[in-house]
């Protein structure tokens, strides 16, 4: 497909050329050559990933370029998780090419496979594995075609770095020569021979992400950096509160105050402010915020503890697990324990507020976005704008890390609405900090009750868990009504809360303990809470694991057992046990000073993805803060693709989850959200961040790779709470671990400075 003609940037010439050429991904790799003949047998795949079943043709995933390189296409977007490097690694591996000869094209409608959302730690399992099989199939096909062209047998050919040679090296063909301008349109079908894992050069290694050099040179483009000739800058005046309606905005006065303001686009309570200069759009937004009048909007609940309020909301029950029986009375010597846990609303908190660029020209709409799902977004925009799907083109461009569903899709809808109202000019919408803080869909607050029965030997016989939660997915998913601006148009469409029907099942993710318990009952109750919510990294697993793993420590204490041994006694899965044992070993090596506490926790993400155990060592400062905890993680995510990628994701997960756990809570009053910038929603700063003491990766090269990016979130929370209990004797069951919960009031002093 030719590059669209509107891709013109005001960027330095070299960089522009590279950017256009590579559609967002340069490759500056290290050249490593290797030879493997086709006589060697590799493992056979037994099942194709879902993404590949949906998009079965080789050229959906891989294109041979005329200059000897290949381009890999992924329907996923780079979010900082390193998916570009992972797909580059698996393709280079199967095709025996150097990494710098493999470029990667990210999610774009009508260009890359439709892989729906980049979410749920599924990119390696789906996209990278699809690329692996497509590349392996491409290899077989290229060799077969080359053998025909050269009139020789397959076993007489070698393939390396884009070149197919006869063993005597007398004759050779490049991939491009084999195909002569065509692409491989065959369907990827089983059986597929994969490269033997003991011959891997890239997979499993700590491969450098090549975009990092571009980042340090400021040559990596983010959606925020797209700058088109004649582009308009826009801000959107968001309402004063959820469901507020615009009463009055004096456009004439606004234009007098900000002469650079070009256009005010008002559709009901959706207000776009467009200017030639970005600063003038920002000024207009600042002034408009001061002068616009709104109805008060939705009244948010106050006056009682949030957990109590959420528990009393009407809800839809959803049975999650039910085995054994709870009818029998406790046997003699049995003990029971119960506890309630709470996790507040949490923010994604992307450092770069959401942004998008759109152009409506000659009946076609082009959108550049950091959305996690370009295809679903296109469907939603078609619904919003009543445009035929084929007239909309959505290109994914990396943005600031999102950690789930933030304002990205909403900003794209803002830009699309304003572009349609201003045909022929690119419109760039930049959300302000306050827009992101106040309007992003948060991770839902959750309340979790657990009760369990121990037999006299200290084994858990009964486990009953109840989870109260809002939905964990309000992604637009093809409809317009979940896009924020849709809800404020003159003819608004209000979203339906999917609640218990939410396909992601996020509320009860990890609500079933992995531990073997003969009598188990888990129920989820879906409420519609006061705040806008959607998917935040790990969804409900963060709170469910926090509750289960805190409770496991409480049970172990009741049973007078070592918490690691107690967990091991209730685990069957050998890989789970291996992770727990490694964490136990790390914990056993720690010396504790006066006032320090050591805690641990474990979970297998989604009970089917990566296994993670976390060890935390804490001490509490006089005023009650958990001061720079020391953290260790042990992770088994099956076959390792990029060792450093797993480590970096896990380190980041540990610190981010520690910030959530010790510090964070979205604050609101009756009139709306009060966490509207970083001072009212603090996250860790450098003076507070934990010490990462080590991430141990257990590699299982012959097992499938397991999603890892979200796996540390829950165990980190519980490890910290368990460590705090050991250090202080205080069992905190309501997050965050705020100072007032850790130190008794009379002892607590104000933090100096």
């Amino acid at each position, binding site marked *: 497909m030719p590059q669209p003609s509107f891709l013109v940037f005001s960027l330095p010439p070299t960089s522009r050329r590279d950017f256009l050429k590579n559609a967002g991904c340069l490759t500056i790799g290290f050249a490593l050559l290797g030879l493997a003949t086709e006589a060697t047998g590799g493992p056979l795949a037994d099942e194709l990933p879902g993404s590949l079943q949906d998009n079965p043709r080789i050229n959906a995933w891989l294109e041979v370029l005329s200059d000897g390189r290949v381009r890999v296409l992924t329907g996923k977007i780079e979010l900082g998780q390193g998916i570009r490097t992972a797909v580059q690694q698996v393709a280079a591996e199967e095709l025996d090419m150097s990494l710098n000869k493999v470029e990667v094209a990210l999610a774009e409608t009508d260009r890359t496979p439709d892989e729906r959302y980049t979410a749920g730690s599924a990119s390696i399992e789906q996209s990278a594995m699809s690329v692996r099989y497509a590349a392996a199939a491409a290899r077989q096909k290229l060799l077969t075609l080359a053998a025909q062209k050269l009139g020789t047998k397959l076993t007489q050919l070698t393939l390396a770095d884009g070149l197919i040679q006869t063993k005597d090296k007398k004759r050779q063909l490049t991939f491009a020569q084999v195909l002569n301008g065509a692409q491989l349109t065959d369907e990827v079908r089983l059986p597929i021979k994969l490269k033997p894992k003991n011959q891997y050069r890239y997979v499993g290694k700590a491969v450098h992400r090549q975009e990092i050099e571009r980042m340090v040179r400021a040559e990596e483009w983010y959606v925020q950096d797209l700058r088109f000739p004649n582009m308009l800058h826009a801000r959107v005046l968001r309402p004063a509160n959820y469901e507020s309606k615009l009463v009055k905005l004096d456009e004439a006065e606004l234009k007098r105050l900000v002469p650079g303001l070009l256009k005010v686009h008002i559709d009901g309570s959706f207000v776009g402010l467009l200017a030639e200069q970005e600063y003038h759009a920002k000024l207009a937004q600042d002034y408009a915020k001061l002068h616009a009048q709104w109805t008060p909007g939705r009244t948010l609940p106050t006056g009682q503890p949030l957990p109590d309020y959420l528990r009393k909301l009407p809800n839809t029950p959803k049975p999650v697990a039910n085995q054994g029986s709870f009818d029998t009375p406790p046997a003699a010597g049995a003990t029971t324990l119960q506890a309630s846990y709470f996790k507040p609303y949490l923010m994604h908190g992307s450092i770069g507020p959401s942004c998008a660029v759109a152009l409506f020209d000659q009946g076609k709409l082009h959108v550049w976005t950091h959305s996690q799902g370009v295809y679903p977004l296109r469907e939603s925009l078609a619904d919003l704008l009543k445009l035929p799907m084929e007239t909309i083109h959505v290109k994914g461009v990396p943005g600031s890390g999102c950690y789930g569903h933030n304002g990205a899709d909403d900003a794209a809808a803002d830009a699309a609405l304003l572009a349609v109202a201003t045909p022929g000019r690119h419109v760039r919408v930049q959300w302000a900090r306050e827009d992101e803080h106040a309007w992003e869909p948060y991770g839902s607050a959750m309340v979790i009750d657990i009760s369990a029965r121990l037999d006299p030997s200290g084994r858990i016989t009964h486990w009953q868990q109840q989870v109260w939660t809002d939905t964990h997915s309000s992604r637009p998913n093809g409809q317009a009504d979940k896009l924020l601006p849709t809800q404020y148009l003159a003819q608004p469409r209000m979203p339906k809360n999917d609640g218990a029907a939410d396909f992601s099942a996020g509320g009860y993710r990890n609500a079933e303990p992995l531990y073997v318990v003969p009598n188990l009952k888990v129920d989820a109750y879906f409420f519609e809470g006061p705040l806008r919510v959607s998917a935040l990294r790990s969804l409900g697993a963060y709170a469910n694991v926090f509750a289960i793993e805190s409770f496991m420590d409480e049970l172990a204490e009741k049973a007078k057992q070592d918490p690691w041994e107690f967990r091991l006694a209730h685990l069957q899965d050998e890989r789970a046990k291996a992770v727990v044992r490694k964490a136990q070993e790390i914990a056993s090596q720690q010396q504790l000073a006066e006032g320090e506490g050591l805690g641990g926790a474990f979970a297998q993400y989604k009970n089917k993805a990566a296994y993670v155990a976390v060890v935390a060592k804490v001490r509490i400062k006089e005023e009650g803060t958990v001061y720079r905890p020391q953290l260790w993680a042990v992770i088994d995510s099956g076959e390792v693709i990029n060792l450093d990628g797993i480590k970096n994701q896990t380190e980041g997960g540990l*610190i981010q989850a520690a910030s959530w756990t010790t510090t964070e809570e979205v604050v609101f009053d009756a009139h709306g959200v009060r966490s509207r910038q970083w001072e009212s929603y603090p996250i860790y700063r450098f003076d507070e961040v934990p010490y990462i003491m080590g991430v141990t990766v257990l590699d299982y090269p012959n097992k499938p790779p397991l999603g890892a990016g979200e796996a540390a979130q829950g165990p980190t929370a519980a490890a910290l709470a368990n460590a705090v209990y050991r250090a202080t004797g205080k069992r905190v069951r309501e997050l965050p671990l705020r100072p007032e919960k850790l130190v008794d009031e009379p002892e607590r002093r104000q933090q100096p400075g």
Partner: protein
Amino acid sequence: MEADLTLHVNGQPHAVRVDPATPLLYVLRNQLALNGPKFGCGLQQCGACMVVLNGNLAWPSCQLPVSEVLHMTVTTLEGLTRPDGSLHPLQQAFIDEQVPQCGYCLNGMVMCGAALLAQDAKPNEEEIRNSLYRVLCRCSVHSRAIKAIKRASEV
């Protein structure tokens, strides 16, 4: 209200015609097409827009009127790269330690670190943490950033 101003950015004079009240960040990005400094909050709370003034002062550019820097030198992330294309030791250390994930806040970490190293060739961990205090990072690569600055100071 626009005025002709001359800025001294990355060793070069740049003539721009802008409203003198415009924050430096918007001029660097939109007039000079420098994408190193990023918009993060516009409130001097997150450090994404950090630049180095007069060679050793890291300062957020999102609220700093461009008229205030006419007599100063401004260095952006682009300006750390030497004219021959080779990297500042801190840029190299960020590659060697594979610090960033999304990379959006990298500018703030590198610019604060560069200013620190310009003042103190051998900072200790506390000094490094203090120098990065104004920078927020949500991917949470803090511990790698601290390692990278230590590594650059050992070159």
